[in-house]
């Protein structure tokens, strides 16, 4: 048996509530990390996965305390160790790669210094040797020109570069164990795939053990040998990663895998009812009981123990795992979406360009925007009634900018946005009449910020009803209740404040508010990004249902290509504010033709160890679109030459109706697909 590096024994961590009750964040966790293996810890927000990872470094956050158990490293308990001794282990024996490197790097210290600090603390190198080592480390994490990067401040690097610096910093102490807390969350798909590939390389190269914490099964699937699934502060399933992803024998994992949309499958994934219980909710039985499809009477009052199955090398916490053992192929069943597409055009964007450039005084006087290279340019899209069109692209691709202009939050620089063939919506909010405002509603990414925390649910939903329809009294109340029922929330939610709702419930309220205006078009800006996977599926299903009921048109912006695949009829791929490809989802996903679409789709991580991401292009970050030529020229791996640099590529239309903007002839683009 291989050497065990860290032993977690019966670990419980929690806090004291105001009433003096002990509330557990981690409940009786026992697991071992072996030398050289990568363990993925997966769970939704609030499952205690980050607390567990931090405890493995002997760190317990302010406000929390260890209730019992230990984290043993080199046969000493980290949780009982003095700070002075911990300083010798942290960074040297166990290193952490944080979730958000942008915030985890000290803003007033140069990159080089921050790496040097780790070297000074954890090695005996002399100054010149350290300098060389810094360059070596930055090289290892594949940062271009290490010497200049070392002299920069953290904010001068892009998100991906910051994350790489964090990796370099962690490697400086040549640790035996690396803890990674959501290291790729918040990065663009392509960057994420590159960072993961780097981490895999480092694991092989240095033989370091890794603990990879993430909510993203796709990322976990790419890196881990073993997976620990956490739910409500407990381990519910632990075993070899392939088995867990292919044949999950715990109902939660089973449901979770089913609720993740997949690239290869159109249609909405099945959702899990409810959401994870809040820490401190007392339960006698199984913590998953409320949401479980396989539960029995005894699950209600008895909590199952973690049971080790020798033949599968898996531990599972369920009375009923046997019923899943026989039939747990995660052959996904999806709810096919009905297209309610009508032949009537509802919104038309022609030649739209949008600029963030600051107006000079003269321009303000003349009421014009002069910017020859605007953030968004040449957007031509026809949107049909009842359609769901998705705008996809990495951060900076201008997808949210376009939504803002349609909503009237941002003035267009040029071009026309036309509603229902005759109404001009190119102006901004102040110039639109109330009815123009009513027909377009927005749902934002983060319901915590888009719902006023001082208003009750009733007041939130009442606002559009009062504003647009002048409803009052009983009628108003009846309408609110109706809307709440439509989003599957009971009448008793009316008196609640947003803070009393879970993430999914808040987003449902936001959806209800949008529908209250009886809009023709709803703009969805990353509506599921802030939600847990199991809740995301439910919200997507709800949006689809409402759309079928009301015949609404959705313009859907998301960075998650699998979600887009699940819900949209048509996809528009954007790069640097310019369209690359527009076409029916089915065709774009099956035969991605534009080189950028190929790059994007290749980088998507699927929760399947057999599907590896394809890294086609470098993940360079471009700050501004090029002055002339194709917007993707800087990263394109199939660049033809001067023509791409000087001329804006023409639209080419395929047989299936995809429009592609590329200089490479269609035949060649499609030929490469087959290979």
């Amino acid at each position, binding site marked *: 048996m291989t050497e065990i590096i860290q032993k977690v024994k019966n670990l419980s961590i929690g806090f004291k509530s105001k009433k003096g009750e002990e509330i557990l964040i981690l409940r009786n966790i026992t697991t071992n990390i072996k030398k050289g293996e990568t363990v993925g810890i997966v769970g939704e927000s609030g499952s205690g996965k980050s607390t567990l990872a*931090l405890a493995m*470094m002997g*760190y317990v956050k*302010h406000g929390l305390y260890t209730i019992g158990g230990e984290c043993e490293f080199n046969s000493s308990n980290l949780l009982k160790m003095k*700070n*002075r001794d*911990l*300083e*010798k*282990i*942290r*960074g*040297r024996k166990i*290193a*952490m790669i*944080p979730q*958000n490197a942008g*915030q*985890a*790097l*000290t*803003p*007033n*210290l140069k990159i080089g210094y921050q790496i040097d*600090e*780790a070297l000074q*603390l*954890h090695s005996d190198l002399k100054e010149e040797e350290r300098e060389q080592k810094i360059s070596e480390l930055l090289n290892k994490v594949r940062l271009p020109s290490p010497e200049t990067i070392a002299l920069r*401040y953290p*904010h*001068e690097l892009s998100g991906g570069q910051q994350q790489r610096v*964090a990796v370099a*910093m962690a490697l400086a*102490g040549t640790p035996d164990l690396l803890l990674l807390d959501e290291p790729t969350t918040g990065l663009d798909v392509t960057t994420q795939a590159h960072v993961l590939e780097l981490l895999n390389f480092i694991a092989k190269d240095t033989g370091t053990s890794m603990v990879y914490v993430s909510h993203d099964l796709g990322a976990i699937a790419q890196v881990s040998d073993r997976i620990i699934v956490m739910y409500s502060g407990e381990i519910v399933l632990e075993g070899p990663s392939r088995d867990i992803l292919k044949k999950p024998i715990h109902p939660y994992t089973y449901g979770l895998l089913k609720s993740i949309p997949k690239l290869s499958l159109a249609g909405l994934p099945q959702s899990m009812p409810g959401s994870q219980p809040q820490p401190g909710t007392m339960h006698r039985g199984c913590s998953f009981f409320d949401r479980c499809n396989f539960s029995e009477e005894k699950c209600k009052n008895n909590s199952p123990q973690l049971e080790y199955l020798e033949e599968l090398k898996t531990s599972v916490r369920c009375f009923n795992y046997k019923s899943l053992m026989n039939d747990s192929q995660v052959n996904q069943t999806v709810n096919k979406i009905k297209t309610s597409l009508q032949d009537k055009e509802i919104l038309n964007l022609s030649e739209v360009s949008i600029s963030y450039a600051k107006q000079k005084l003269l321009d303000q006087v003349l009421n014009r925007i002069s910017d020859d290279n605007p953030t968004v340019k040449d957007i031509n899209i026809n949107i049909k009634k009842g359609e769901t069109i998705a705008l996809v692209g990495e951060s900076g691709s201008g997808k949210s900018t376009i939504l803002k202009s349609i909503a009237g939050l941002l003035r267009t620089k040029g071009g026309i946005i036309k509603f229902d063939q005759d109404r001009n919506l190119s102006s901004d909010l102040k110039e639109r009449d109330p009815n123009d405002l009513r027909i377009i509603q927005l749902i934002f990414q983060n319901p915590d910020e888009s719902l006023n925390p001082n208003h009750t649910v009733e007041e939130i939903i009442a606002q559009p009803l009062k504003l647009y329809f002048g409803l009052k009294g009983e009628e108003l109340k009846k309408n609110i209740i109706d809307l709440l029922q439509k989003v599957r929330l009971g009448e008793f939610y009316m008196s609640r404040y947003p803070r009393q709702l879970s993430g999914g419930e808040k987003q449902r309220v936001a959806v209800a508010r949008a529908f209250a205006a009886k809009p023709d078009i709803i703009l969805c800006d990353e509506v599921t990004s802030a939600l847990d996977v199991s809740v995301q599926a439910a919200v997507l299903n709800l949006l689809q249902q409402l759309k079928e009921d009301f015949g609404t048109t959705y313009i859907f912006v998301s960075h998650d290509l699998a979600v887009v695949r699940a819900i949209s009829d048509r996809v528009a791929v954007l790069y640097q504010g310019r369209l690359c490809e527009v076409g029916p989802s089915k065709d774009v996903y099956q035969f991605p033709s534009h080189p950028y679409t190929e790059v994007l789709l290749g980088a998507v991580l699927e929760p399947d160890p057999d599907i590896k991401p394809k890294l086609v292009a470098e993940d360079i970050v471009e700050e501004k679109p090029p002055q002339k030529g194709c917007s993707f020229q800087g990263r394109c791996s199939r660049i033809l030459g001067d023509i791409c640099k000087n001329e804006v590529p023409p639209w080419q239309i395929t047989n299936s109706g995809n429009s592609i903007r590329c200089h490479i002839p269609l035949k060649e683009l499609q030929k490469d697909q087959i290979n």
Partner: protein
Amino acid sequence: MLFLIIKRILLGLITLFIVSLITFVGTEILPGDACTTYLERQAFGEQLEACYRRLGLNVPAYERYVSWAVNAIQGDFGYSLSGEMPIKEVLGPRIKNSLVLASAAIFIGIPIALILGIVTALWRDKLPDVAISTVTIFAMTIPEFISATLLILIIAIWLEWLPGIVIVPTDVSFLELLPNIILPVIAIAMIMTAHMARMVRSSVIQVMASEYVQMAILKGVPYWKMVFKHVLPNALLPAINVVALTIAWLLGGVVVTEVVFNYPGLGRLVIESISNRDLPTVQALAIILASIYVSINLLADLMTLMLNPRLKTLQIRK
């Protein structure tokens, strides 16, 4: 960067111009003028005419403003009415005295405030924090005229250690002034230090809770090194502006304290000249106080800009 400094200085000058205009218009609108105040009951006929001519009040208002402004730029604010002294000479020693008071309070108060703020933040919710925080909150809430009066009562009257009020001529030398300023400095420093210590405390606590400090701990950086390298530079940056405002407030004359201690500083001059209807002096004071505020805030902004790498590089890139 240079462009930014020039822009800020220009904005400051415009502010000063507006302030001067407002005070000038204000003094014009008020009934009565320098001559009627000065001549009192004799303010009629020949004598009034003569006074107007002597003080140059017989020309239109805008001309007077222009000539006043031109002189003021050169440091000549005209004549004070009480005693007909040049205002320059009245102001000089007052400014010096206020400077002495303010710098004493600053040199004592700011280091203490920083230390208290940092200590309370690092030992948050422990005994040092609870003890110091109680005292600072107490010091913050007592108005200065009460603490000043109490100080006089205890130290000057009961213990007889120090003089209770300042009874020296305005233009006394620094050494003679020294024993007199101890009590006023304590009275001012108390409230100022308490405010700043609370500010520093919350700022340090905020930085201590940040992800980069957690990262530094997890990197194995020893505690005090982490405090000095990772916490303080980031926590004290926002304090600069508060310190600047406090300094401006101090220089502008801590009116109440100066009156209680009979201290011959700018603050008392403000009170005196207003109650004497000494309009030229009020005008001069308004402009001087405004320039103190403007220049100190400008300095603070530039310092923040220099110390914050984020802002610094942003400006250079542009």
